[in-house]
């Protein structure tokens, strides 16, 4: 069931929010011991929120499609009176006195917060193999990672614990778990969704967005959480649009760019085939596929890595004296950032501006880009390298290679399921759009979802 289906059932009185919430809590109780997707379960407050939602809906006070819907937020979003750890032992006892801007908006939309989702330590990694709070497992195969850093969000949505879970994305951390867990994951344009009250990994690359079971669920969530927030210096005043694609929406004459360089190199052949199949489906729906050459993405990735290493290390500098507080992978990244010269950071931010201009030229040729989200399906837990063709590659660098640069550019990007690989594991198609053109990205994705059934596949429960 999707958010929109549940919302309809709530309004027909076929279901109550209390029933949906009990079902969500039961799913958490059943599956969380195996998956470790939810770090903090909020049974009491969730039941109270569901009761309030039912009362409001029964008297016609309708807050919109999220009203009465059980959700989770990554444990990077501050929640008043509820521990928010950022997946780190440093914040083990951090109980905020405020809600994040996104949490405020979700509460105003009537969503029922069932829990805080597990994550990679400090949101700084792609496995969600957390040394302090345990490994998050992939619902499709518990021996595999769910992706990260929003791994708990991906696992919670894919295993149907909740209808939607918020994630954060600094170098792919929404889209990677969406790809590995077979969910939709939307990283909106930089500034579209408030960062207020979200524990930062990075000042200039962090984005907030939802992981959901359908494209339209991502759209209604974006409608609830988008908008200017004075408390976030980078928040945009660009007007919020209407994001929900119409039933049977058309993509006739939409120009879809299919990169001829970089994005289809060093892929698992199943990924290559799945993404090209989605492009063919789009073409059959009337879209125009245009081969394009994209600017230098390896350079963009290098710029993104310098910015992230420097900013994350600056943020954590005051804690790094006690090295035992960090997992070894996170510590290695923090140490790298501390060794980079300040000139590299400034020049990376200058290159970012240059590359933003280069990439902008692409939008005169196409309306959006199709790329794979990740070059392979979910790797096994503790797998350090992955072999793609003749190349053996670091798992973290491979998983971020196709998504990181989009954060540097601040563009909206969505990952959606595009078919299983030969082992039955989910794969992701990434759709990248113009700045603030989430509506087009969502419309293209919704048309593909309407025409295919990849999003209906569910992990076996064993």
């Amino acid at each position, binding site marked *: 069931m999707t958010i929109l289906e549940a919302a309809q059932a709530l309004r027909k009185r076929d279901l109550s929010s209390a029933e949906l919430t009990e079902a969500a809590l039961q799913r958490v109780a059943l599956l969380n011991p195996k998956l470790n997707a939810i770090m903090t379960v909020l049974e009491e407050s969730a039941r109270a929120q569901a009761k309030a939602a039912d009362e409001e809906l029964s008297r016609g006070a309708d807050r919109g499609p999220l009203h009465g819907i059980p959700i989770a937020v990554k444990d990077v979003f501050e929640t008043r009176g509820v521990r928010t750890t950022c997946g780190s032992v440093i914040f083990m006892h951090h109980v905020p006195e405020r809600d994040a801007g996104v949490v405020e908006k979700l509460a105003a939309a009537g969503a029922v917060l069932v829990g805080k989702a597990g994550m990679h330590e400090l949101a700084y990694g792609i496995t969600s193999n957390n040394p302090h709070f345990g490994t998050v497992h992939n619902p499709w195969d518990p021996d595999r990672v769910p992706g990260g850093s929003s791994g708990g969000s991906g696992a919670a949505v894919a295993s149907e614990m909740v209808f939607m879970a918020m994630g954060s994305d600094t170098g792919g951390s929404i889209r990677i778990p969406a790809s590995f867990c077979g969910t939709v994951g939307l990283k909106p344009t930089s500034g579209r969704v408030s960062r207020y009250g979200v524990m930062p990994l990075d000042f200039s690359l962090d984005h907030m967005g939802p992981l959901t079971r359908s494209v339209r669920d991502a759209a209604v969530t974006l409608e609830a959480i988008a908008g200017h927030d004075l408390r976030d210096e980078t928040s945009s005043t660009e007007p919020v649009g209407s994001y929900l694609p119409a039933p049977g929406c058309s993509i006739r004459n939409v120009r879809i760019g299919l990169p001829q360089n970089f994005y289809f190199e060093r892929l698992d052949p199943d990924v290559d085939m799945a993404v090209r199949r989605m492009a063919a489906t789009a073409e059959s729906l009337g879209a125009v596929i245009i081969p394009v050459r994209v600017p230098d993405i390896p350079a963009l990735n290098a710029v993104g890595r310098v910015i992230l290493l420097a900013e994350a290390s600056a943020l954590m500098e005051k804690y790094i004296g006690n*090295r035992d507080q960090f997992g070894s992978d996170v510590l290695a990244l923090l140490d790298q950032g501390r060794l980079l010269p300040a000139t590299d950071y400034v020049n990376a931010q200058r290159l970012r*501006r240059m590359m933003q201009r280069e990439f902008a030229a692409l939008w005169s040729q196409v309306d959006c880009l199709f790329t794979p989200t990740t070059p392979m399906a979910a790797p096994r837990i503790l797998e350090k390298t992955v072999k793609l063709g003749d190349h053996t590659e670091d798992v973290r660098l491979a998983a971020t290679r196709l998504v990181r640069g989009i954060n540097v550019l601040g563009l909206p990007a969505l990952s959606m399921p595009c078919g299983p690989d030969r082992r039955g594991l989910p794969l992701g198609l990434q759709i990248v759009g113009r700045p603030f053109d989430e509506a087009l990205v969502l419309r293209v994705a919704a048309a593909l979802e309407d025409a295919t059934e990849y999003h209906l596949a569910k992990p076996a429960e064993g």
Partner: protein
Amino acid sequence: MKNWKKIAEANDLRIPESDLERIVPALETLEAAFRPLAKTIPDEIEPAITFRIIPEPAE
């Protein structure tokens, strides 16, 4: 190749030698990719860093 050990010592970063050895290959790879790019930046390009002056309300 930079002497990362000396850089760490000069900056009093207190990174244990074994940890330093582990990250040097990644730093070298990143430097090799990034250094040539930095040489291509025209002088007039400013960094994409946000800094805004917000007027204070009059008393």
